[in-house]
């Protein structure tokens, strides 16, 4: 069976610095894969490359048997890859509901005339967009529903902003979801709740998930597979237990035992 997404020999160079090199990676339908590594290892660059925000220097990215190299970010989203951002990036002046509605842009089609003439097709589509948005928000229980619909996103608490960002990614109706540090900055309770939600994203919504995460408990609890990056190079791959005992990984995180200055 072919992979949902496959990355071959990916190399990204920023003016002489190899942010990523020799990265081979694949994710299968229904998997949850974590990408870990110390700061500056190239994890977010990896996401940026997949979503078209950065052009790879070498290599190929294949999604559903087609290369997505060179596509614009919105085209990548249209094919079914959605992402969240490490430093939550919502549309702060738009309401909670609007944030989710706007994410369905690539799944809808009405333009100026429909809106001006209020055609039945336009009204139908607007209604569907709104219903789908509410359905997505209902996934987070009572946190983002009711009076929250019309609140601007900037009034939300930090944890709710993170949730809303995941909801926005869900609303693009993706097959593959890229979560960039979904629990960063959350307290242990919120982290536990979100860990469970990530599991449900797969079981209930059928998303395949690739996740960057620093919280090792979350990584242990949800991932089928873990990939470790260091200085843009993959240094280990496997189950959580395999990776967490790998000496290369421990060295990357904690450094080499001191053997004199070099």
């Amino acid at each position, binding site marked *: 069976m072919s992979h949902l997404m496959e990355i071959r020999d990916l190399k990204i160079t920023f003016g002489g610095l190899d942010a990523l090199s020799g990265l081979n990676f694949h994710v299968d339908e229904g998997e949850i894969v974590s990408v870990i590594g110390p700061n500056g290892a190239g994890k977010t660059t990896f996401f940026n490359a997949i979503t078209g925000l950065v052009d790879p220097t070498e290599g190929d990215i294949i999604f559903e048997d087609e290369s997505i190299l060179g596509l614009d970010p*919105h085209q990548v989203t249209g094919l079914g890859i959605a992402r969240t951002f490490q430093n939550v990036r919502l549309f702060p002046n738009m*309401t909670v509901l*609007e944030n989710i509605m706007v994410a369905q842009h690539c799944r809808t089609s009405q333009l100026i005339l429909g*809106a001006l003439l*209020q055609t039945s097709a*336009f009204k139908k589509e607007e209604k569907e967009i709104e219903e789908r948005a509410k359905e997505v928000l209902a996934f987070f229980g009572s946190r983002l529903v009711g009076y929250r619909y019309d609140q601007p996103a900037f009034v939300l608490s930090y944890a709710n902003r993170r949730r809303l960002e995941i909801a926005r990614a869900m609303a693009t109706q993706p097959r593959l979801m890229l979560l960039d540090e979904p629990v960063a900055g959350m307290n242990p309770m919120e982290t536990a709740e979100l860990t469970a939600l990530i599991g449900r994203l797969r079981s209930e919504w059928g998303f395949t998930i690739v996740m960057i995460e620093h919280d090792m408990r979350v990584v242990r609890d949800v991932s089928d597979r873990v990939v470790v990056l260091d200085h843009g190079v993959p240094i280990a791959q496997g189950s959580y237990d395999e990776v967490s005992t790998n000496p290369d990984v421990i060295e990357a995180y904690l450094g080499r035992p001191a053997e004199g200055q070099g």
Partner: protein
Amino acid sequence: MSTTMTSSGSSAAGGFRAPVTDQEWSKIGKWGGLCVLALVLVSLIGMPVGLDRRILIHPVLSLGYLSLLWIPLVMGSVVSRHIELEGVESPEPGGRELLAGALTGLIGGAGMAVFILALDNFNLRDPLVNWSPQLLELLTYGRGIGFGALAWILACVLLGLVGSAIHVVPAGLRRVVSHSFFGLLTFAVLEGAISDLSEGFGLEFLTDSIYAKRGGLTVVWSIVLAVLIGGVSMLTKGRLKAAKADYGALQGPERKRASRILFVSVALMTIILPLFLGTIMNELLANVGLFLLLALGLNIVVGLAGILDLGYVAFFAVGGYTTAVLTSPDSPFFAPELHFAVTLVIVVVFAGIVGLVIGAPVIRMRGDYLAIVTLGFGEIIRLLFMSDWLKPYFGGAQGITNVPGVDLGFVVIKGTDPRSVFYLVLVFCALAIYISWRLQASRLGRAWMAIREDEKVAEAMGINTVNAKLLAFVVGAVLASFSGAVMVAKVGSVFPNSFMILVSIIILVVVIVGGMGNIAGVLVGSFVLIGILGGPRQPGLLHEFQSFKLLIYGALLVYMMLQRPEGLVPSARRSQELHQEEFLQDVWLKGEEHEQEEHEAELHAAEAGGSEPDEGSGS
């Protein structure tokens, strides 16, 4: 740190507290100095003399004097204002604030006295054109230097006191007084509109008694009006807020019905009122409408999609020239003399194409770069129409004249009949408002907002940002071209110099001052700025301001950006956000300060070798 703590501790006991800290003295010095600077500057740019002919209250107050007198008032108010910080107890305002206001006024007045002496004794007319005997005459009320100097000191102290008293008197009184004051000012400023309207209704006898023959309210009537407005303000206290809350609480169909009634009554008023207005007022309204149309278009581009277009006048020009070429028999190269309605279709198509052509290269840029490039395109379009190269087609600097009005069969809409022009403009404005309103709540409108908020994320969320931004450009271009078409039909001619860069800037100021991204804001902005101050060439109600218009536009823009970035009528959300940010910043700053103190305390403790570990923990 410790000095402020002790001072606030000791001064909290007494009611009257003199300015004690150096900080407060320097604040008074700073605002007093600013007061002097502003007074002298305003005098020397010729405002008092230039505006003296416009009388607000006959024979006491002219616009010229007002242009000076507001300065000590505002400075006195600013100097005694406390910035409220969460968690910091601000002392009850009282004698100290009054004293600060009076002292600020005193500095201002003393500065003015020195200025008057200088005016009398030196002649600096060579570099400073307004260093004139007229100015001296005006400043001394024609009663000699000594009287003038003393009067200014007294007046400034008094005004400084009044300004600071705003913060001291109870809120109810403050409200009534400020309502009377601004109500009176409105009556005085809107004199032209009000007497015109009352003439239309056959109520001249009323305005004839309210306003003096040479203009301005009479003293008796200004007192009567002030009392009346104050009374109304007292009676309606809280009513307006309650009505607003009631309206906000309405749900579903009731809400719909209420807003429909509101809408219909406003629409009826705009349709009926011009029938009772004279030529000048209708002309003014038509101008406001033309600029409103432009501002609504720019609001889509800047306010919704966040594209800072400084060359918006280009589309205004394209609409104007297309109409002129297609309708005027004097068009030099190609003169099909089409009807306005047919022209309009072509104008829309043409403006759309020009929008695409200019937009395509520009739209990929961001922020500052985009603003600069659009600025260039705006000028290029004007220079093209002006050029010798295109003179055979567009008439160069002489432009195209003899553009016919809009022939509707039963009436010809022409500039000589401003009322009909107003109705034509009204139709287009209604259309533009409808377009803005519907698009705002559509898939495309949401995409525009997302792009404004964060373009990169919008793209990552599946929005084709290039296409969406191009569409915003095109819609804006079409609305501007409507305005151009109507303007040309109204004026009957078109010249390249009607499309100076200034037009773009003024429309942008209208949008910003009114409230970006908000239809109501743009409406208010056009009425206040274009209606009262006037457009680039069109006089407003205060046509005396003509030569100071740009200065006031600039000052207003700076003030709004600093104090009220959300505009006069903010969209509810935006204002929340901007002030939220301020609040958060305060919290953050306080946190920072706190951390620093802790850090210092730690250092201190470490230096002391840990012998006094508890020192400084009280901070």
